[in-house]
């Protein structure tokens, strides 16, 4: 498990996810009227196929540093009181949480905008990969790895 915790930023790659209440307490600030917590959960379908399990691989050290880059950028672009990213690695069955993003801001609108921006950047730049397992006994696939060589 790799993690970093400062006064305003908390990042963890791998390991067990902290309790939501603990995360909420961390990001809460007296000048912030909005705390926004997003959970990414393994769903039971993708592209018409029944999914049973996701398994995440990660370049832990770089995932941590990329998350730090993303949160530092978000701190400049949004009036964040504090922000946090947690991502599990290894197996995450249907219905379980793989990722949590949390922020606090003075007002609700910017908290939602900041969370969405952080998630988009995670999906673009953080070196974490998911492998999908299906219930039809078909071969498991790395999401994003199905690209042809053309």
């Amino acid at each position, binding site marked *: 498990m790799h993690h970093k915790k400062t006064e305003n930023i908390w990042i963890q790659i791998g390991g067990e996810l902290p309790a939501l209440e603990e995360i909420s307490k961390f990001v809460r600030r007296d000048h912030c009227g909005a705390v926004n917590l997003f959970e990414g959960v393994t769903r039971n379908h993708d592209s018409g196929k029944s999914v049973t399990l996701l398994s995440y691989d990660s*370049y832990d050290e770089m995932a941590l540093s990329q998350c730090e880059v993303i949160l530092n950028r978000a701190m400049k672009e949004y009036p964040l009181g504090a922000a946090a990213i947690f991502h599990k690695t290894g197996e995450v069955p249907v219905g379980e949480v793989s990722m949590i993003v949390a922020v606090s801001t003075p007002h609700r609108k910017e908290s939602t905008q900041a969370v969405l921006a952080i998630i988009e950047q995670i999906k673009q*730049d953080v*070196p974490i990969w*998911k492998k999908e397992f299906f219930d039809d006994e078909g071969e498991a696939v790395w*999401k994003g790895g199905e*690209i042809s*060589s053309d």
Partner: protein
Amino acid sequence: MDRAVKAELKTIEAELRWFSQLAEKRGVRSETITLPSGITGAELISQLAKEFDELNRMKKHVRLAVNQSYVEPFTVIHDGDEVAFITPVSGG
């Protein structure tokens, strides 16, 4: 090692890091490789893709990271660098 001495080296050593389908197909998650001094990231990918089919298949979509930061393909690899081959990521 002294910088002047290193500059004389004709070869360098780099640590390669593999993840997701590249690690599965490669059979290892890291390896140390000897490379010609001055090799760029793009040249490294081309060289490895000749004997690694999965990298050859994915090479147009692979981003390189050196010492845990994304770099441009023309970046020169240096002795002791950690070089990772980042296929399209899918976290979240």
